[in-house]
């Protein structure tokens, strides 16, 4: 992957330290042309630093950056052909929508007619027709993001970088903007990298996800791969809101399982059935007590105590309701096992399913 001939953007062994905080620790990855990449990680994991180093807003202590086969270490930010959308958009407050989008073109001393054509085209593209004369404060959060997006695209960059593009927008509009942005990026056909701490966002929007933690890259892959086949304990624990359990071998169906020091269990691995419901695997089913039921809109989130451990499970709202204090059947389909060294993760399936199961 690292020596991919098609690599459009490539980072090789990037290191960056702020004081005694290691923001980038031997970061290497490459991005294919036209892909939409999500840099996913908790805050402080160094994802924004990677973006800023790539843009030229920050200088790496060591390592090389290549864009389109050219080493850009010593090329200033403005000459790298990059469009950057800032987290707070950084729209110029005293400029109208038109002037904000035209800013880069004016700096490049394009002709008046050319600027007008290009800005009109972009305003049309991002769907802000009729709002050219507004000031940023007269726009909604979503509209502001569209302006920031248009401004970044104005000078026809080859690479678009977005720093937490949806962080400043309320939840409902955010979902709408996600699909809008995805569509628009594929329409423009520009290679893009965005930073997010929201796993749902990364999974939904990106072609490929790069998971970062403590300045290091944990895993790179498609959303499906990263989610369902985590390679490191961090990725297994970061995605899917799981719980961790040390003494997993006491659960029915895993008595024979060994080779790990920690089990990571996602809610979707836990099937909860009421006592009167049909249970295909009675031998490997545990009995648990529902301690807490939280309403999550389309589903219930159940906190269940089994053998002095707490598990989280989901149950669809259409199914028969489960009450707090109720005894239920709990079937653990599988778990992620972290090996003794704490480095690798593999999947262990419930004994009852081992014959027939197909691991994705």
């Amino acid at each position, binding site marked *: 992957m690292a020596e991919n001939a098609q690599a459009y953007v490539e980072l090789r062994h990037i290191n960056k330290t702020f004081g005694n905080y290691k923001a980038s620790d031997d970061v290497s990855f490459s991005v294919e042309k036209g892909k939409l990449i999500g840099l996913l990680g908790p805050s402080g994991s160094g994802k924004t630093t990677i973006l800023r180093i790539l843009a030229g807003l920050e200088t790496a202590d060591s390592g090389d950056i290549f864009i389109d086969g050219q080493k850009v270490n010593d090329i200033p930010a403005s000459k790298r052909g990059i469009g950057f959308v800032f987290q707070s958009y950084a729209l110029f407050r005293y400029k109208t929508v038109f002037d904000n989008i035209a800013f880069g073109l004016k*700096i490049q001393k394009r002709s008046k007619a050319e600027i007008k054509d290009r800005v009109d085209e972009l305003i049309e593209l991002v769907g802000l027709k009729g709002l050219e004369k507004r000031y940023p404060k*007269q726009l909604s959060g979503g509209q502001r993001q569209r302006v920031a997006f248009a401004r970044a695209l104005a*000078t026809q960059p080859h690479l678009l970088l977005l720093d937490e593009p949806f962080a400043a927008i309320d939840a409902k509009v955010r979902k709408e903007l996600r699909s809008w942005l995805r569509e628009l990026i594929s329409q423009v056909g520009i290679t893009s990298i965005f930073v997010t701490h929201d796993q749902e966002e990364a999974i939904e929007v990106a072609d490929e996800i790069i998971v970062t933690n403590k300045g290091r890259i944990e895993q790179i892959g498609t959303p499906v791969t990263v989610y369902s086949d985590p390679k490191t304990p961090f990725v297994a624990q970061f995605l899917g809101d799981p719980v961790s359990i040390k003494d997993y071998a006491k659960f029915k169906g895993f008595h024979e399982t060994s080779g790990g020091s920690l089990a990571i269990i996602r809610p979707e691995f836990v099937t909860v059935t009421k006592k009167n419901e049909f249970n295909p695997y009675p031998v490997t089913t545990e009995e648990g007590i529902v301690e807490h039921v939280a309403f999550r809109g389309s589903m219930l989130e159940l906190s269940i105590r089994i053998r002095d451990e707490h598990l989280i499970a989901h149950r669809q709202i259409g199914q028969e309701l489960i009450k707090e204090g109720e005894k239920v059947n709990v079937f653990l389909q599988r778990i992620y096992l972290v090996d003794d060294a704490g480095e690798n993760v593999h999947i262990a399936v419930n004994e009852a399913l081992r014959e027939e199961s197909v691991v994705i």
Partner: protein
Amino acid sequence: MKKKKSVIPGFGLSFGIVMAMLGLIVIIPLCSLVVFSLKLSPREFWETVTRPRVLASYKVSIMTAFIASAINAVMGLAIAWVLVRYDFPGKRIMDGIIELPFALPTAVAGIALTHLTVPEGWVGKIFAGAGIKIAYTRIGITIALVFIGIPFVVRSVQPVLEKVDKEYEEAAAMFGASRIQIFFQVILPEIKPALIAGFTMAFARSIGEYGSVVFIAGNTPFKTEITPLMIMAKLQEFDYASATSIALVMLLLAFVILFVNALIQSHTSKIVSGIE
């Protein structure tokens, strides 16, 4: 009828205090000014306020105040910039010294500046060599007004400059804007309202400044007499009606200056707050 209670208590009481203070300190004295000047007929009033010597004093006052405030706008911006953008030893002390002109009795400043700038003084000596007189000329008046006006600009611009996000500059730099372009196209629009406010406050204050100017001005009729001095002169002649008439003109002038400022500020705050 039920009285609706506001969430924030004490509106009645605090509003009453505000009105009482405004009335006692601002409105009643200003009204008395009008009442005193009304003792003159309109014709006499017009003659008093347009005597050649008084007209010359307006010119001196407005001109020196304008030049001094313009200098302050540039220098004050530079000082604010240095205080906000850089770290250096003694920064806190420098930051505190800015306010000295507020605290210092203006007469003290006037005497100190005069001593420095007379042809025998430390600074005056250098300029006297080049044939430039500072004390007892309009240059001297301007210097005194620069001294008293500088904190107005620094203190208006400083907090606004602190809030200008680094991302604005980075956004502009991504397009290849030079430092000069970034300053004039990105930073200056952000701080312009504060700069104008600082300029107008310094200007309004400078026009009315008396204490520091009388010592350094030399008070030559038609040349270095400022309007507040004309008022003092009339008072010493017990010609209260004339004194208040000239004062009324100054009041109008101050009102116009602040009104223009308010117009500009409300225009820019509309852009920033997004209310049309």
